[in-house]
């Protein structure tokens, strides 16, 4: 492995931007088309005392991908010569699907996962969500289970093309 050492002439501001770009390229291990920047999981990158500090926020409290994401950030930054960064988890403000970028929503759809709809229906005890099938675009869909293959997804089925699909649920 080649270790790249940054020239000390780079300003902290430039280093911070480069570190952000490196961290932002880390993908969610469970939805590899999305980067942590697309998801809104990457909250802050700072240069403190010459070292890099990264703040990430969990999607769900028990999301097992968080350890993996933290490790991937460390590896990516070390690989790019930033030394061992400090990755910390912040809880507040709580992550919401509203932070997902438009780019992220498009990538999800193309990957076959329906992106989150407006979060307003979450509070209703028996929510009436309208989810569009990412396969055929039909709105004639039904929920199979509120809990899918990962904490952040529900399992739906399209009544038009008959295909089941994952729905990234509102949070």
């Amino acid at each position, binding site marked *: 492995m080649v270790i790249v050492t940054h020239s000390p002439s780079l300003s902290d501001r430039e280093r911070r931007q480069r570190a952000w770009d490196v961290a932002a390229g880390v993908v969610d291990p469970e939805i590899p088309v999305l980067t942590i920047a697309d998801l809104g999981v990457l909250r802050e990158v700072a240069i403190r005392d010459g070292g890099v500090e990264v703040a990430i926020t*969990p999607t*769900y*409290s*028990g*999301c*097992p991908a968080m350890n993996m994401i933290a490790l991937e950030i460390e590896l990516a930054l070390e690989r790019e010569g930033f030394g061992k960064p400090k990755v910390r988890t912040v*809880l*507040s*403000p*709580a*992550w*919401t699907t509203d932070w997902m970028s438009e780019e992220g929503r498009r990538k999800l759809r193309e990957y076959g996962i329906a992106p989150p709809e407006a979060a307003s229906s*979450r*509070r209703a*005890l*028996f*929510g009436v969500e309208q989810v569009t099938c990412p396969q055929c675009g039909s709105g004639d869909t039904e929920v*199979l*289970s*509120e*809990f*899918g*293959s990962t*904490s952040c997804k529900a*399992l739906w089925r399209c009544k038009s093309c008959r295909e089941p699909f994952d729905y990234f*649920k509102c*949070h």
Partner: protein
Amino acid sequence: MAVASITVSETPLVLYALRRADDALILGHRLSEWCGHAPMLEEDMALANMALDLLGQARELYSYAAKVEAKDNDEDRFAYLRDVRQYRNLLLVEQPNGDFARTIVRQFFYAAFADPYWRAMMSSTDATMAAIAAKSEKESAYHLRHSSEWLIRLGDGTDESQRRAQGAVDDLWSFTGEMFWVDGAERALIEAGVAVDPSSLRPRWLRTISDVMAQATLAMPKSEWMQHGGRSGRHSEHLGHLLSELQSLQRTFPGVTW
């Protein structure tokens, strides 16, 4: 057991965080016992997902308790190295899974309480508790919807599912009063705006319960006698068995990691 239990300095805030953490850990552990045994694949995933949410909440709360206590304890030591009498969870959450109806009723009683509880806690004057609540509240909303839908399906289902659901409601009812119980230590935190006063949530809880039970064609229990003890470490015989499984590895091989 090869490792001695830890001692905990239970200041009011440490105790408060541990009580909530223990609820989440023990209920999460119970739900995880269904993994591979649920009546259908979707439910297997749903119960495991909820267990994961609860485990995540427990970890945040234990870590905060450790930070406040500022001794050598951490989330793992709280979970793995306390005895039954040191656990502070509700008696409700330690009750065995029984059949699927019993698991759903237990979940429903707890989620109908936890959902408004976390929402109220979001206004806590304690920033960490408020942040943990803001995450947990989103998850509990899904847990409540899940168990409500199942309770209606079971209660308003076949004769057998109705009989089993009603039996579980009647059996578990006496454990619901403890959710609204408060002692002196907690009272002081409530007055300081750190803790939520659970008694203020009781009317709302009762309304959720009676609305869903009516849709499920289930009868509200008449009994008003309530069982207490879990919050002060006096548990049913079931918790010891649960902990012996949960803790066996760490007690046998101290500090072992993957």
